[in-house]
């Protein structure tokens, strides 16, 4: 008996709009700090803080702490796991969107 084809499952961790915006931004640059993400995504400080916590906990983003002069700077970047997850998400979405009417 032939296997029933199934609709691909979307990664909900990435698919959430706020996190998707942050991940898309981090995919375009090598790294960015909290303030840059805050200003560029337009999310509220609280929301961004929660989303970054979730992304970090899932291992999709990594943190780098450095001292610039006497000021500490924490910047976020996509981890290798994050890059792979985004690639998979993109493929899934492309295959789903291909079924949409033009």
């Amino acid at each position, binding site marked *: 008996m032939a296997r029933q084809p199934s609709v691909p499952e979307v990664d909900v961790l990435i698919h959430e709009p706020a996190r998707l915006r942050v991940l898309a931004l981090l995919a*375009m*640059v090598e790294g960015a700090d909290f*303030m*840059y*993400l805050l200003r560029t995504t337009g999310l509220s400080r609280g929301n961004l803080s929660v989303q970054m916590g979730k992304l970090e906990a899932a291992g999709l983003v990594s943190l780098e702490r450095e001292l610039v002069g006497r000021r500490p700077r924490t*910047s976020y970047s996509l981890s290798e796991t994050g890059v792979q997850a985004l690639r998979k998400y993109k493929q899934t979405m492309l295959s789903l969107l291909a079924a949409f009417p033009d």
Partner: protein
Amino acid sequence: MASAQTLTETDLFRAYWDDGLLDLLGGLALLVAGIGWETTLGPLATVQAPLWIALWIPLHRKIVEPRAGFVRFSLARRQSTTHRLAWTLALGVGVFVLVAAVALLARGETVQPSARHLVAALPAALVALAAGIAAVLTGARRFLAYAVTLLAAGAATVLLGLGPALPLALGGLVATVSGGVLLRRFVRAGDAFEFEEGA
């Protein structure tokens, strides 16, 4: 800020220069050069110009970065910018050497008055070229507007028989005012954003 509909790394890079600090410093360098040239120092007044540009990094860290945040662009983008910046700096040094040489040439008594007027417009034309390169480097179109201003002022120098200092001072004034307005707007927006978000 770049449109969310067409957001690319290029848009982010262009927005990175929207604070106006570079315009302000470059404008002040030109303004002081123009005024200094006209008053006492002559072509030597251009020597101070690189000092203003050198202030960009510390002032960017002090004023812009805490409000705009920090971003590290891709390695390819950084390498391309460094490469272009090196060429721009080399061109900048060349421009100032040429400006000084042209000014000395214009003072010579053997030069025809009509040729002297053309020579007097050269500094503005050379700085306009540098502004055009800045437009390519940063992707900010307002640098093209500064270049056009300098070229127009240079043309007026030829037509009205003015000295080389006036177009420099005029171009510098336009960039200083524009940069000042942009920076003030940027700082106010940043402070308001910080207050609203931090409340």
